[in-house]
């Protein structure tokens, strides 16, 4: 339900670098405007990160990010994951458009002086609460009248007493909708308390500033326990929630759930689709969680337990990170991480040419580890290890995960921009490892056609300098434990129920995401039909974790059973799978893990 994301790389960077959008929104008023004439300053306490400007469109993004410590900007929680990013963009897009539209003179005057437009996004901690407060303003001076007008619009609401849309301030209203969504508020708040949801005021008497709240990451829900209010507040501000009882059909927004190990009706009648996959039963001393280190250790234990279950508890996980050279940011951040020698997770940061590492040694190392019944997870910059590991991965698909990645990509951002705290770093490492271990099957005719089109050769991804032969995208995804059937294996444009069943049984995924349209085509037209189908299908999935998710690009289709099957938007699935640079097992799994049953 709520996905934790990196505000800089997941939210801001794609927006700031969306040249056509930024320019398109300005060009009617300022025809010569270029996207590199705007700079975005993100701030938390006194720490700042700046993105935008000419070098961001021409230079190496990795380098530009590395010159700044972007980990100072806190992680945020986004309801609805990837699609929820759009709620942010509703705010940013309209802010930008209105800034240009209503202040042509002031903007032009700044540009004429050879300066850039600076937009500030300041994050402050809303103390003892699950929210960050965001302040958004620009260095363009604005008449106070604009602020008054905006506040009038926010106070008046979106619809009148008869339910009719009040046709003015469309951009402001859309910003309000975005702010409401990001805080997880009922939509009625946008109408009844607009000026509280999106606050507008003059900053330093000359800048128009918007203020709204967004979620902090939502980590853990503990049910069946009680705690005193101050402790609860403290924990909530760190993403830990305690509930003695849960309301009926409660949708758990957190990544982890700890619940009592008793067969009480309150827990047994609670549909699994409303809970996270990472759920546990254990005794806890709640007061210990007040200590941030203890709560982090608990989450690490939960991740470790989850991994043990996935790998049968008897093996060790070898996490091998292969940066291309010592200057790569992921090398810098992971090389010194100390992991307890008793831990089931070992980390090896390997650069060829350093300490005797080369392709042959790596191959030998991986082979030995696998012979010792370990599971290896290899993240490989530029896919340099491909020739060393492909044959092993084919022979031992359950023991070797391989994800090649390039610079300035989703995966390189995940591996490079990590928390400074060692415990948080270790938790992230476990999360990435578990995302790697989970077998994800995706049944979607569009993805199949993108990767293995019927009218041309299947897509290949090239790594390195391009002289090496490429690798089939579908095969590469399989090494990442993402299974998308080839057209000749299972044609999804003309799906057949039996063949789908056989394919799922053969691949035994932990998570299956299926396009609602395929269910439609095989005759599962009602929620009941779909429920029967999912119940029969889970039988042939991997016994360790079983989750069927429905995805669609048309909102929630009518055949999706309410509050019984998790749902995710199509764009998210596509975004993290079909592109060489955007594909990311970690991001894909985080998206799928945040999917829950929905109510229309």
């Amino acid at each position, binding site marked *: 339900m709520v996905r934790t994301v990196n505000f800089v790389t997941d939210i801001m960077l794609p927006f700031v670098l*969306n040249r056509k959008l930024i320019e398109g929104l300005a060009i009617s008023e300022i025809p010569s405007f270029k996207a590199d004439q705007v700079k975005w300053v993100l701030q938390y306490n006194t720490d700042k990160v700046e993105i935008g400007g000419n070098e961001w469109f021409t230079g190496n993004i990795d380098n530009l990010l590395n010159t700044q410590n972007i980990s100072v900007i806190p992680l945020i929680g986004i309801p609805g994951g990837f699609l929820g990013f759009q709620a942010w*963009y509703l705010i940013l897009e309209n802010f930008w458009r209105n800034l240009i539209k209503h202040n042509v003179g002031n903007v032009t005057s700044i540009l004429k002086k050879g300066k850039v437009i600076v937009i500030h996004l300041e994050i402050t901690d809303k103390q003892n609460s699950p929210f960050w407060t965001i302040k958004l303003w620009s260095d363009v001076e604005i008449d106070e009248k604009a602020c008054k007008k905006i506040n009038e619009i926010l106070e008046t609401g979106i619809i009148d007493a008869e339910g009719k849309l009040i046709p003015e301030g469309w*951009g402001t209203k859309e910003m309000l909708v975005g702010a409401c969504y990001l805080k997880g508020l009922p939509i009625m708040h946008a109408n009844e308390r607009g000026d509280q949801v999106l606050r507008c005021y003059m900053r330093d008497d000359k800048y128009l500033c918007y203020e709204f709240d967004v979620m902090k990451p939502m980590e853990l829900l503990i049910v069946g326990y009680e705690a005193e209010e101050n402790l609860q507040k403290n924990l909530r501000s760190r993403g830990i929630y305690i509930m003695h009882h849960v309301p009926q059909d409660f949708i758990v927004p957190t990544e982890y759930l700890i619940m009592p190990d008793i067969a009480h009706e309150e827990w047994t009648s609670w549909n699994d689709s409303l809970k996270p996959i990472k759920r546990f039963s254990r005794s806890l001393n709640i007061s210990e969680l007040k200590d941030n280190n203890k709560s982090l250790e608990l989450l690490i234990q939960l991740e470790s337990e989850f991994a043990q279950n996935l790998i049968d508890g008897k093996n060790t996980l070898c996490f091998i990170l292969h940066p291309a050279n010592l200057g790569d940011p992921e090398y810098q951040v992971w090389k010194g991480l100390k992991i307890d020698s008793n831990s089931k997770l070992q980390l090896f940061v390997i650069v060829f040419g350093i300490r005797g590492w080369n392709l042959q040694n790596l191959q030998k190392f991986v082979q030995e580890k696998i012979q010792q019944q370990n599971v290896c997870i290899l993240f490989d910059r530029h896919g340099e290890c491909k020739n060393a590991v492909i044959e092993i991965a084919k022979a031992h698909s359950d023991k070797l995960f391989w994800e090649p990645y390039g610079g300035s990509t989703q995966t390189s951002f995940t591996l490079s921009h990590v928390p400074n705290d060692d415990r948080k770093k270790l938790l992230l490492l476990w999360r990435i490892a578990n995302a790697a271990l989970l077998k994800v099957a995706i049944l979607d005719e569009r993805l199949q056609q993108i990767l293995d089109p019927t009218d041309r050769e299947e897509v290949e991804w090239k790594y390195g300098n391009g002289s090496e032969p490429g690798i089939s995208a579908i095969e590469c995804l399989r090494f990442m434990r993402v299974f998308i059937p080839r057209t000749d294996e299972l044609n999804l444009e003309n799906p057949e129920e039996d063949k789908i069943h056989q394919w799922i049984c053969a691949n035994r995924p932990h998570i299956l995401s299926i396009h609602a349209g395929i269910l439609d085509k095989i005759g599962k037209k009602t929620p009941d039909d779909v429920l029967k189908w999912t119940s029969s299908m889970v039988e042939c999935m991997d016994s360790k974790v079983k989750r069927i998710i429905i995805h669609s690009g048309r909102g929630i289709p009518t055949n999706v059973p309410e509050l019984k099957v998790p749902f995710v938007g199509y764009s998210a699935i596509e975004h993290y799978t079909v592109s060489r640079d955007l594909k990311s097992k970690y991001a894909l799994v985080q998206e799928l893990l945040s999917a829950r049953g929905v109510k229309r």
Partner: protein
Amino acid sequence: MEHDKEIKHYKEQLPSIFRCLGIKGFVTVARWPFEEVKKDRVLVTIPVGELNCKEQDLVERARKHIKLEVLEKFSFTTLIRENGKPVWFRFKKASKNKIQVNKISTQKLLDISCSTSTVDDDFLLKLVETLEQIGLSQYGGKSITNEGLRQVMKDTFNSAVVGVLNEGIKHIYFVPVSSPLKREEILGILAINSIDEVKEDILVNVVAQVAMGMLFPFHMRELNQIRLSYALRSAVAAIMARNMSHNPGSHGLAYLIAEIEEKIRSGQALSVEEAKDLKNFLEYAKARMDFVAEVTTYWREMPWLEQLTL
């Protein structure tokens, strides 16, 4: 909070109305809010009429037989509500048990006479058979003939009917209130537990109207809330559709199309950088469309989160 306000309203209004009507005893109000507003049934028991000390004692004793934990398992008012049949009930004390279906004004009246002893299985079977005949055949998704239901029905009858009548209440009337918007919907029931007999014309012409007048404003308020929330969702969809057309559409796409047009005219291909920019923009637009589709079908909300921080 909303429940509290509603209950306060009933407590303020009903005693004086019934004093004017000369009806003494106690009244139970049950109202079912719309499912969309996600509230539990409103349920309150209020002493009514000009009661002397003896009558006050009687009412207090009788009210104690209305046990929530018993009614949660089975209640005749919920039975009426679930089946959407505006059937009136009258329970009265008699020398022997008897069940008859009569008429009150234009509505069906289930007339149940019961002796002072607790009900036996034969009586219960007869009652179930009659309930089924008059269309009150389902309870909690199960058939009223379900054996599991019989025991809980018996408990309710013995407590909320026999127990109350034994304390000196003469009649118990259930006055169902239908929604004027949707006749099959029972929005609430007024149960009148009277010490003296109440004339039928007072019940039909006054009490039924009072019940409607009391319960209907709350029903309408909720209906308005639901209506506005749907209107708001439509308005939000309209705003997002309009802005999608305006911002990424007429400002973003329009210039992009013009640029591509120029490329075509001059016979130039897009450079890799230009193609990347185009891809970024199209991905953005696609995700926006997906988001708009989702928001129009499902609004992800966590109202409890803000509640926790108030």
